[in-house]
């Protein structure tokens, strides 16, 4: 029921081994790198692989990824968590308040605790009271918005802030892998591929916030706990078939609580990252829908940690480009998108899916046409990109995604 394989739906090619999959992913990554590098050389959009862009992408990916991990923990336990956004909002407040009161690490803890409290409420509503998961999530997001404002008006009014904003909060330490200074020189040269690699390595390994490192570590940790421990197996069994789990003596309610509370804590951590690291301040509306994007990354990461981490990086990347001469950089990316779509089209024709292939070709041609007829992309379109990508991926691949079998379904003990 819950073997740690990727999607294996009927009609799919025979299951591949782990090594084969790893190799395939590496090849794809390498191809993407070459393509991006070529696009950079052709268009001169140096920000596509600059250190600044990559480190901004990583920073933008962290809160999205943490929210996505939050979604993963909850949905693996069978509870749809649309309240991630609300738990993140609680985390932004908790982070700022904790950092101002107990120092930056206190903020990290407080952010996670506030998020976890939101998760606890969601668990109470959905698990104990059997309220519809979506309804509870929406209500929690509403509540969190109001609660954060209310608490902020008490916490920050006397120290130079107010209901919508906090004073500047103390920051976390930043870490760098030592001995990478020489890469800067290579990046400057603008060599094909080599300079791009230098920029990416420097961006990914220097000037990292401590919380970024923690977030990155949490991805394999989540994988390990969920797929390699008895605890994780029990938790996932509650999301796949709670009645079977119950019959084997698993306390389904308890594991659902664990999943949803951890989910809230992770989302809260993402919120704390926003207020402590990204902005150094709590501001109302700071999350700007990142909880929902996190949910989206989890879905098209196919409810798997690795997949959602890549999704978060992708969104983080478009997010970061938009801040760094966004209109030009993303415009250059159109060329890349056209190339990817063309590759998909060829692959689909090869596999015999003519319709999907034709649609992909048409989209590729559209992207190419767009590239050649314009000089930049309106910033609004750049901003909409993650959402459009999500919709397109869902539309093209929804059948290949496999969510936990009992995700979102009500469960009452003893009614199996």
């Amino acid at each position, binding site marked *: 029921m819950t073997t740690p394989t990727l999607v294996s739906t009927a009609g799919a090619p025979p299951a591949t081994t782990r090594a084969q999959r790893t190799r395939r992913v590496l090849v794809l990554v390498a191809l993407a790198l070459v393509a991006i590098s070529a696009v950079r050389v052709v268009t001169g959009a140096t920000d596509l692989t600059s250190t600044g862009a990559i480190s901004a992408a990583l920073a933008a990916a962290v809160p999205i990824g943490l929210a996505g991990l939050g979604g993963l923990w909850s949905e693996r336990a069978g509870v749809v968590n649309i309240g991630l956004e609300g738990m993140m909002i609680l985390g932004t407040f908790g982070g700022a308040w904790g950092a101002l009161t107990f120092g930056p690490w206190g903020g990290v803890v407080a952010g996670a605790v506030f998020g976890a409290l939101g998760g606890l409420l969601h668990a109470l509503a959905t698990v104990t009271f059997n309220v519809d998961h979506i*309804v509870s999530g929406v209500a929690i997001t509403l509540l969190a*918005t109001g609660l954060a404002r209310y608490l902020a008006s008490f916490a920050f009014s006397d120290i130079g802030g107010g209901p919508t904003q906090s004073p500047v909060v103390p920051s976390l330490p930043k870490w760098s892998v030592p001995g990478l200074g020489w890469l800067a020189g290579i990046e400057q040269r603008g060599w094909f591929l080599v300079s791009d690699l230098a920029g990416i390595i420097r961006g990914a390994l220097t000037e990292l916030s401590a919380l970024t490192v923690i977030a990155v570590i949490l991805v394999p940790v989540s994988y390990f706990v969920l797929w390699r421990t008895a605890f994780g197996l029990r938790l996932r069994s509650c999301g796949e078939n709670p009645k079977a789990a119950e019959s084997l003596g698993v306390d389904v309610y308890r594991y659902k609580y664990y999943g949803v509370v951890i989910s809230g804590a992770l989302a809260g951590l993402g919120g704390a990252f926003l207020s402590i690291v990204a902005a150094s301040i709590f501001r109302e509306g700071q999350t700007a829908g990142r909880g929902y994007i996190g*949910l989206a990354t989890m879905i098209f990461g196919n409810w798997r940690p690795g997949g959602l981490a890549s999704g978060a990086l992708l969104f983080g990347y478009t997010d970061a480009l938009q801040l760094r001469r966004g209109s030009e950089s993303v415009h250059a990316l159109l060329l890349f998108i056209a190339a990817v779509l063309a590759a998909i089209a060829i692959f689909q024709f090869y596999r015999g899916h003519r319709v999907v292939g034709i649609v992909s070709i048409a989209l590729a041609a559209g992207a190419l046409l767009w590239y050649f007829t314009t000089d930049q992309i309106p910033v*609004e379109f750049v901003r909409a990109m993650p*959402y459009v990508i999500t*919709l397109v991926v869902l539309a093209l691949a929804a059948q290949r995604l496999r969510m936990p079998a009992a995700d979102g379904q009500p469960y009452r003990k003893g009614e199996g």
Partner: protein
Amino acid sequence: MSRLDWRRWLPPILAPVLAILLAAAISSLVLLSSGKDPGRAFASMVEYAFGERTGPASMVDMLNRATTFYLSAVAVAIGFRMGLFNIGVEGQFRLATLLAGAFGAAAFLDPVPGPIRIFLIIVVAMVVGAAWAGIAALLRVYRGVSEVISTIMLNFVGGSIFAFLLTEDYLGVKQPGSENVTTPILPANAWMPSFPFPNTNQRVFGFIVIAVLVGFGYWFLLGRTRFGFDLRASGMNPTAAVASGIDAKKMIITTMLISGAVAGLVGLPGLLGRDHAVTTSVAGLGFTGIAIALLGRNHPVGIAFAALLWAFLDRTRIILDLEQIPQETIVIMQSVTVLAVVVMGELAARFSRRQQQRSVGRATGEATVERGSVAVAGAGVTSAREGS
């Protein structure tokens, strides 16, 4: 058993009332814990809403707010009743309002008489709203994409398109003497006539009539038509509905289109009755609609009460500042109410289910009754996902 069995109708009514009381109690505790007198706060809110001096203006404002809330909530409720979550009212109404506003102000409509022009604006808004919701419906039916996710994504995409179109390059114009970019101002004959209200020069939106008609239409559609029956059946038990010959795909598309069409109306009371141009400021009404639909238990009259209550809280929160109470207390009260209502609703449904099972058990002389085997109409919102 008789239709008037108290076990059936009482819990669904009692639940929201209890929930509101519970939320009021929690809000009072919040106020007490910060050293404020909840009684005084509440008295000043009531005074502000219905008192002699500020009452008339407040009541007009509350009616106008409630009109907008009501439309938004009905749009959400139509989906809820068949287990479809249209979280996308926000995006649907913003795009609809923008395009309808720009269309209504277009010069080629100038020879058209006012009422027809208003009618055309309404039609455009409904079509745009339905079209935007239709994307989610098609994705759901043909690609299996959950409408919850797709409507959330479409909200953001819609917001971006809104921001993109409402610039001077496209649909926007800069209003003289201000930096705000809006759609061109509608000609005066396309302003919706409004009603006077005693003791104030504020006027009630004419659109309130349309909101009432929508509410009536919703009631009629659900309770008096074959479509409404199919819709409710699909919401309560999708498997049984399909087995009885209901075309699930067609139901999803039709319901989503109707929901989107009603969502398209949400921005129009303000557009036709007050602003006469679309500004960037409209936002958030879609999510309010979800809350109010939940609060009103998806019932046409329940939603009306919920919308009025919400409007009352929204209107009177500014008075709390004078009592040195943060306005946010109201937001907390609103969201706690919603949460309490859904929890109470679930408990009430469980209670009435158990009562019915017990009476059935007595009637059939059985000592034990199988739990969970009687399907009941008590729960307002049921998940669309079916058991495997």
